[in-house]
């Protein structure tokens, strides 16, 4: 396949990206070849993959400034070879992918050292295919290439999810995941079927699709199909059911990639289809996306608050973040169709910003939990606690991620949230008055979601890393090795820098926004300050902010030390003088989530097992499932079963009846055709 590189003058970023994809493919199979030598895989192959990811990020950066480059691979369908294209949008998402994947893969090279050989080889195979698939999704410039890459991504991630396939739950999770992914993919097929211009095979290239002008009705159909298809991948409520199952099931680096990057490919696809391929948008699309996004965000965060499995909690929080991103897209669409280009640019900027933020902090949190999981062997928060004492690196780095995702200044989560709220605040420009009514409510629920996210993160970090160890043998949990630390440090740095340098990040995002909306966000604040539209309207300068906090902090500290003293006496915790303390007296995860469960009980189905008062070793189990499963999926399953029973009836083994069928068919056709 190497002859696929066209001999074109100059080394376009696209060609570079393609070389890296090839590198990953080679690495994938190299892992298979050297499966007898795991050391080689963990110490050479996977780090090389990480370097590839880093290169991909750089190429993305180059692609933002370079002109659109494209070339055609000699593979694919006849007359429909794979078209590749690198424009600002794909470049931005390449940065996202490369940046997050570099840290995660670096981490993986340490994390996977304990795996047994065969599994390791397979994992490295699928892992690199997964990376390649995601990149190809972002580069593809025709429907076929896109779908192939899309499904390659789904398939490889399925095999990654089912790495420990001995556990029935994991098998079930993987099955559910692949099923929903496949249904989504079919709906994407239909979407492209609508979009493709003429009947010829050439009309599947995105250029042809852009050229084609579908009727309003059909473009709406295409949009809905796309929303369904991409929503299924992104975990849009009610298509999210696979997500809290699949993400925890996968090995931690994979969960990090799936949550941090793979969900973004769905966002990428949605943007690509609705802004790029479909030229014109109907006014109600944006409102629909906005509404769905709000539901997803609130629903996701509520369920995140009541989880007691840390990876599951993070998975739900991913759903929340996807919801926030969709809200941004919805706003952008509303402004766009309303002709408010600048505001659309603001909303879209906020969206993309949040996408890349989420890639970083969610990746960080997932690999952090991975470290804990590997050191302690459990995912249940009820058996953890006090891990900070044994794994300080992991703890502090994870804390950065947690604060970032909780949307606290001056970290990156706050910036995108701030931009989004600004977009809401600017909504009075809209021409439809009823929207002006709706939007404050939407903003309110976004604020609610953000505040709840803080709750969730306090719960997550507090229960896992702080307090007393709930299990005595947590004592011998050990800190992770250096590659893992480096991976986490990279992502944490990402969170901090993205938080402190918003003006620059917006500079990167600008070309994307320019491409999609034809207008960029004008930053009034210079390099230091973030001031969309107008410095008098709103501004935020995280760097100053940060320095001031730092300064005050140091001043206070020094003042206290100077004026008074730094004497410390250690003793047992006081706790209002209660005599015996033990770890069981702290809040369990269920306990911490209990108020939320109490308030939002109507959303969920709560299953409790309360111990009797005389139990010497009382065990409490509270589990909150979402009702969507019962409301949407169970009926479908029942209907399918019923239908298959009915069809089964037709076939009851009696040959005379079979003869009757063909006889009836014959007669029917004879009557029918004359």
């Amino acid at each position, binding site marked *: 396949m190497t002859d696929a590189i066209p001999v074109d003058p100059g080394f376009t970023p696209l060609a570079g990206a393609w070389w890296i994809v090839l590198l990953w493919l080679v690495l994938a199979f190299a892992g298979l070849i050297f499966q007898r030598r795991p050391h080689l895989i963990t110490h050479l192959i996977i780090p090389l993959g990480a370097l590839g990811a880093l290169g991909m990020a750089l190429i993305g950066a180059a692609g933002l400034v370079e002109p659109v480059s494209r070339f055609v691979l*000699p*593979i*694919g*369908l*006849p*007359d429909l070879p794979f078209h590749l294209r690198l424009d600002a949008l794909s470049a931005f998402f390449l940065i996202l992918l490369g940046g997050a994947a570099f840290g995660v893969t670096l981490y993986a090279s340490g994390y996977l050292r304990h795996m047994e050989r065969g599994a390791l080889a397979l994992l490295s195979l699928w892992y690199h295919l997964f990376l390649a698939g995601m990149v190809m999704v972002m580069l593809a410039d025709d*429907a*076929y290439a896109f*779908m*192939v890459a899309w*499904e*390659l991504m*789904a*398939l490889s991630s399925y095999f990654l999810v*089912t790495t420990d*396939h*001995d556990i*029935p739950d994991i*098998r079930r999770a*993987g*099955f559910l995941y*692949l*099923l929903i992914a*496949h*249904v989504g993919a*079919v*709906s994407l*097929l*239909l979407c*492209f*079927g*609508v979009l*493709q211009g003429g*009947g*010829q*095979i050439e009309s*599947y290239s995105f250029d042809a699709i852009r050229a084609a002008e579908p009727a309003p009705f059909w473009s709406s159909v295409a949009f809905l199909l796309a929303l369904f298809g991409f929503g299924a991948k992104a975990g849009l409520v009610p298509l999210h059911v696979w997500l809290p199952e699949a993400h925890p099931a996968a090995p931690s680096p994979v969960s990090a990639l799936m949550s941090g990057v793979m969900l973004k490919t769905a966002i990428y696809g949605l943007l690509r289809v609705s802004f790029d391929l479909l030229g014109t948008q109907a006014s109600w699309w944006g409102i629909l996306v906005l509404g769905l996004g709000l539901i997803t965000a609130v629903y996701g965060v509520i369920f995140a608050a009541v989880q007691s499995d840390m990876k599951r909690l993070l998975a739900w929080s991913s759903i929340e973040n996807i919801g926030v991103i969709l809200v941004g897209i919805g706003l952008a669409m509303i402004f766009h169709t309303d002709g408010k280009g600048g505001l659309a640019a603001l909303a879209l900027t906020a969206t993309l910003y949040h996408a890349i933020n989420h890639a970083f902090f969610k990746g960080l949190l997932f690999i952090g939990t991975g470290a804990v999981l590997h050191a302690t062997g459990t995912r249940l928060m009820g058996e953890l606690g006090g891990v900070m004492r044994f794994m300080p690196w992991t703890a502090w780095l994870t804390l950065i991620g947690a604060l970032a995702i909780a949307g606290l200044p001056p970290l990156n989560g706050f910036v995108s949230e701030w931009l989004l709220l600004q977009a809401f605040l600017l909504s009075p420009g809209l021409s439809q008055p009823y929207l002006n009514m709706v939007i404050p409510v939407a903003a309110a629920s976004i604020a609610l979601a953000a505040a709840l996210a803080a709750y969730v993160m306090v719960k997550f970090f507090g229960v896992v890393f702080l307090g007393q160890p709930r299990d005595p043998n947590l004592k011998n949990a050990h800190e992770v090795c250096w590659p893992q630390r480096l991976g986490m440090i990279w992502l944490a740095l990402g969170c901090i820098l993205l938080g402190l340098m918003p003006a620059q990040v917006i500079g990167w995002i600008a070309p994307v926004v320019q491409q999609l909306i034809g207008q960029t966000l004008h930053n009034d604040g210079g390099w230091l300050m973030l001031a969309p539209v107008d410095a008098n309207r709103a501004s935020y300068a995280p760097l100053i902010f940060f320095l001031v906090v730092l300064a005050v902090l140091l001043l206070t500290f020094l003042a206290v030390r100077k004026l008074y003293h730094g004497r410390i006496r250690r003793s047992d915790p006081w706790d209002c003088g209660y005599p015996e303390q033990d770890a069981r007296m702290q809040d369990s995860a269920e306990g911490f989530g209990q108020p939320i469960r109490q308030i939002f009980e109507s959303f969920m189905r709560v299953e409790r097992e309360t111990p009797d008062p005389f139990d010497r070793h009382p065990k409490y189990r509270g589990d909150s499932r979402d009702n969507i499963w019962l409301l949407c999926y169970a009926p479908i399953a029942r209907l*399918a*079963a019923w*239908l*298959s*029973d*009915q*069809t*089964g009836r*037709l*076939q009851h083994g009696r*040959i005379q009846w*079979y*003869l009757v*069928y*063909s006889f009836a*068919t*014959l007669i029917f*056709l*004879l009557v029918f*055709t*004359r």
Partner: protein
Amino acid sequence: MEIYWLLGIPFAGGIFLALWGSRGFAPEINALFSLLTFLAAVWLTVRVVSGGPILTANEWFFIDPFNVFLVALTAFVAFTTALFSRPYMRIEQEHGRLNTARLRLYHSSYQIFISAMLLALTTNNMGILWVSMEAATLATVLLVSLYRTPAALEAAWKYFILCGVGIAQALFGTILLYFAAEKVLGSGGVALLWTHLNEVKDQLEPRVLQLAFVFMLVGYGTKVGLAPLHNWLPDAHAEGPTPISAVLSGLLLNVALYAVMRSKVLVDGALGTDMAGNLMMGFGLLSVVMAAFLIKRQTDVKRMFAYSSIEHMGLVTFAFGMGGALANFAGLLHMTMHSLTKSAIFFAVGHATQSAGTQLMSGIRGLIKTCPTIGWGLMLGTVAILGVPPFGVFASEFLIITTAMHEHPWATPFLLTALGVAFASIFGKVQPMVFGETELARLPHQPALTPVFVHLGLVLMLGLFIPPYLAAWYRQAAQLLGG
């Protein structure tokens, strides 16, 4: 010339194995003859690809891109199946399910079956086409009942009666065709020669052809396994020996569909309407949906994949029904992909059932532990047949579905439902067979998995890259089908 080799070799093989098929080396001989057949097919293919359609033996045989690609496919799959059946049948013999006499029957009728199918593909005479289809049926009836279990006998009986009746309808259709043709071409030999019919198809009497097509569709459609005429198919596939299941669903169905298409071309010419196309779309859609819902309730692995064959033939029929260059192209591609993939799956399933000692899926667990190659073969094959890229089945499904959405949007909800249900059912059943814990035993003989991976490799390649000459060849075929 090479056409005689093509037909002669398997026939001779049939005779030879009928005489000495009980010897120990019979499986190798079987494979050898299949190999020779395949070589002859390649030779013929090269001739046609280079020199265009051949019309030889005073117009008895006519080979154009459409059937030569089926010829090549048939010969190839027949060869790989023979390779697979070598160890498979030995293991069966060791398990004591077969004795040498039956092996002789098996080998010779296998060859006869192949030659009958090749004849059906290459002949230019609609009557001979019918004759050889019937011959192919007869050759396989005794193979289906090879194990002599009650179930096998029942399956064979149904196979025989239903297909016999069906094919009788096809004969009536042929007669009607002749009846219409002789007025134009005069009575006697030429009136059934497809080439001649094709030239004068617009002069043929529409009403008669309409009637003829109905009979032929019902007749050959029974062998294609179109719902609701499909009832013989799952039984025959499930109860016969696995190599036979492979060739039945990999090849026989194609050949039957080939017959339908030959007559469709004539009917379209005569009617000028797309009545035939609509009928085929209807049948195809019905088959896809019914099969999908029946798959959901299967417990026997071979039976399940038999239903999946019905589903895919339905899809192909639907594609051909839509007509047009793209759809026909997609249909042909899907035919190829389905044959390769499905036979590969049956190979893997065959060994899986042998090592588990049962065809019940509940009895097959964790293949990946005991015999990883079989496990991965089954897993990848399943993934491929479910239309997941980068495997070739996806390429054709992509074209079919998008075209359907573009041309006949009303059909897509059915397709969507069916594909979803089929995916859920098949994958949900296969996953635990491949993954998870296990207590299966290893096989006495080294399983023959080269065929499996050769097929899958081809399917994978065709999903990513269709060689230009192959593509050109498909396009010509699509043209012939009135694209």
